[in-house]
C-alpha cells in the first residue's frame, strides 16, 4: 500500500512537472528567436499544447471514427453503409434512438425549470436558509453517477408481494394497500426510462440552480421596480423582466445539460444495462464495443450521435458570434 502510494505520488509529480517544463521550454525557444518573430510565434506556442490535446483526443478520433463506421467489425474491409443499414434495420436500435431523444427532450428542460424554481424561491429565504437549501440541492453533484444509481436502487427496489419491501416507493404505495411494482422493469409509457431520468435530474438540478441563482441576483433592481410601478404582477415581472435578462445563462445551462444528457451512460449501465427498453446510445455503444466486439457498429453509433449533435453545434457557434458582436 505504501509503495503504491509513493509510486502514485511520484507519477503525479512527474506528470505535473513535465507539463510545466513544456511551457518553460516553449517560452525559452520563443525568446531565442529575433524579437519580431518572438511576438509572432508566441501566441501559437501558448495555444499549441491545448490544440495538440484537442487534435489528438477530439479531431483525429472524430475523423477516424467516421472512416471506421464504413468498415467491418475489425476495421479491415470496407463495407459501405452496411453498419448504418444494419443499425436502422434493427427495431431495438430505433428504440434506443427514440429513448435517447426522449432524454434530450425532457431532461435539459426540466433541469433548467427546476433549477430556476429553486433559485428564485430560495432567493426569498433568509441568507442562512438560502445557503442550506442550495447546499442540499447541490450535494448530489459531488456524487458519482454510479453512487447515485446505488442510492436510487433503494428507492426503486421491488421485492415479491408479501415479503418486506426495502425500496422506498414500494413501501410507500404498500401503505395504501397497493401491490409492489417492479418500477425499473415497467416500460409502459416509458415509465422506467422516466424514473432513470429522475436520477439524472436529482444529480444535475444543483448545477443549473447555482448558475441561474447568480444570474437572477444580477438582474438590476431598477428594471423590476419600474415594472412594478407600471403595475405589473409578480408573474409578469418574472416572465417579462427577469427571464429575458437571464436568457444568456439559461441557454448556457441548457446546452451544458444537453451535452451531458447526450453522453449519458453510467446511470443506464448500472441500473438496467439497457434492459426493459431503457437503452440509450451511450450504453449501446458500450455493448457493441465490449460485448459484441464490433468496432464498425460502435463507430456508426457514435456517428449517429454526432449527427444528432450538429444542430447544437451550429447554435453554439451562432450564440457565441452574437455574444461577441454585442460585447
Amino acid at each position, binding site marked *: 500500500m505504501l509503495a503504491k502510494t509513493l509510486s502514485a505520488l511520484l507519477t503525479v509529480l512527474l506528470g505535473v512537472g513535465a507539463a510545466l517544463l513544456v511551457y518553460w521550454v516553449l517560452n525559452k525557444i520563443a525568446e531565442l528567436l529575433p524579437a519580431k518573430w518572438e511576438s509572432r510565434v508566441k501566441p501559437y506556442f501558448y495555444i499549441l499544447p491545448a490544440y495538440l*490535446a484537442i487534435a*489528438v483526443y477530439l479531431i483525429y478520433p472524430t475523423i477516424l471514427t467516421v472512416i*471506421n463506421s464504413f468498415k467491418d467489425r475489425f476495421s479491415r474491409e470496407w463495407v459501405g453503409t452496411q453498419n448504418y443499414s444494419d443499425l436502422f434495420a434493427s427495431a431495438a436500435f430505433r428504440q434506443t434512438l427514440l429513448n435517447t431523444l426522449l432524454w434530450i427532450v425532457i431532461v435539459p428542460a426540466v433541469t433548467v425549470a427546476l433549477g430556476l424554481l429553486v433559485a428564485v424561491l430560495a432567493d426569498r429565504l433568509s441568507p442562512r436558509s438560502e445557503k442550506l437549501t442550495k447546499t442540499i440541492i447541490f450535494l448530489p453533484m459531488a456524487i*458519482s453517477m454510479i453512487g447515485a444509481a446505488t442510492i436510487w436502487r*433503494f428507492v426503486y427496489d421491488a421485492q415479491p408481494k408479501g415479503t418486506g419491501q426495502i425500496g422506498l416507493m414500494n413501501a410507500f404505495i404498500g401503505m395504501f394497500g397497493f401491490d409492489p411494482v417492479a418500477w425499473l422493469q415497467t416500460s409502459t409509457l416509458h415509465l422506467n426510462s422516466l424514473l432513470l431520468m429522475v436520477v439524472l435530474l436529482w444529480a444535475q438540478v444543483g448545477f443549473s440552480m447555482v448558475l441561474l441563482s447568480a444570474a437572477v441576483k444580477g438582474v438590476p433592481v431598477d428594471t423590476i*421596480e419600474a415594472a412594478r410601478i407600471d403595475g405589473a404582477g*409578480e408573474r409578469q415581472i418574472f416572465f417579462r423582466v427577469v427571464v429575458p435578462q437571464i436568457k444568456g445563462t439559461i441557454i448556457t445551462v441548457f446546452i451544458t445539460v444537453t451535452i451531458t444528457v447526450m453522453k449519458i451512460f453510467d446511470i443506464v449501465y448500472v441500473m438496467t444495462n439497457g434492459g426493459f427498453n431503457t437503452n440509450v446510445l451511450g450504453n449501446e455503444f458500450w455493448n457493441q*464495443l465490449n460485448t459484441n466486439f464490433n468496432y464498425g457498429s460502435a*463507430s456508426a453509433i457514435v456517428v449517429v450521435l454526432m449527427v444528432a449533435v450538429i444542430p447544437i453545434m451550429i447554435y453554439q457557434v451562432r450564440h457565441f458570434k452574437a455574444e461577441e458582436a454585442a460585447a
Partner: protein
Amino acid sequence: MTSSTTAHEVAATPTAGERTARPKRAATHFDANPAKAGWLTKTVLIVLCVAWMVPLFGTFVTSFRTRDAANSTGWWTIFTHPSTISNLTLDNYDKAIFGENVDMGRAFVNSLAITLPATFIPLLIACFAAYAFTFMDFPGRDFLFLLIVSLLVVPNYVAFVPMLKLYRDLGMGGTFPSVWLAHIGFGMSLAIYILRNYMATLPKTVIESAKIDGASHFQTFWRLVLPMSIPAVAAFAIFQFLWVWNDLLVALVFIGPGENEPVTVGLTHLKQQLGQGWELTTAGGFFTMIVPILVFLALQRFFVRGLTAGAVKG
C-alpha cells in the same frame, strides 16, 4: 411559481422613493418582500429538499446495517422499530475498504493519482491558451477559438476506439498517463471556454500598463492574469475534479479493472461480486463521496463566482 406573493404583499411594496432610502441587500430581488418567503415558497422548498435528501439519507443508514437487515427490511425500520438501532455496525465500511475481494483503499489511492494531474495539467494548459485568446492578437485567432467552442459538443465516445488502438501500439494501455491525457483532451475545450470568458471580463488597462512597464507576456500571465483569474480557475478546478473523480466510462475504457482501477470501477465490482449485497455497495459509495464533498464544500464560494462571470452577462 410566484403565486406565493399574495395581494397584500404587493400592495405593501414601498414606492421607489422609499426603496432607495432603505439599506439594500447586496443581492437583487424581484419579490415584493424579499426577506419574507410565503408559506407556499417554503413548502415547495422544504418538499424539494426532503426529496433530495431522503434517498441519500436512506443509503447512509443502510451503509451501517447488516446484510440480513438490509436485505429483509427497509432502512426506515430503525425509526419504526428503534430497538434495532443497536444492530448498526461499521463492518460494511471495514469490508468495503479493506476487504479481500475489492481493495477500495488501493482504488482510493489510484483515484487520487488519476484525478490530481487530470485536474491540474489541463487547467495549466487551458490557462495559457485562454490568455493567448484573450490578450494576444494573431492571425486565425477567432477561427481557432470558434473551433474550440464547436468541439464542446463532441461526445468523448468518439475517442475511445481510436485511442485504445493508439495506446495499444504505444504500449501505454492501463497506465495513469493514458487516463490523464484522455481527461486533458476531453476537458480542454470546456476549460478554455470558461477561462477565456472570465479573462475577457478582466480590466484591459491593468494588462496594458504592465506591458508598458516592460513586462513580458510570460510575466504578465504569471504575476497578473493568473492571480486575477483565481475564481474561474478554482471553479473549473472543482468542476474537473468532480468530473474526473466520478468518471466511470473513461476509467473503464482506458484502465479497466485491475491494479490501477479507480474507486468508480471498484464500486462496480462490489456490486457484481456480491450481487444483492447492498450494504457493501452503500458503504463503498459513501467512502468514495468523502473527497468530492469535502472539495466542493471547501471551494464552494469560488464555484459560483468563477463559473458565472462569463455566463451571467447575457
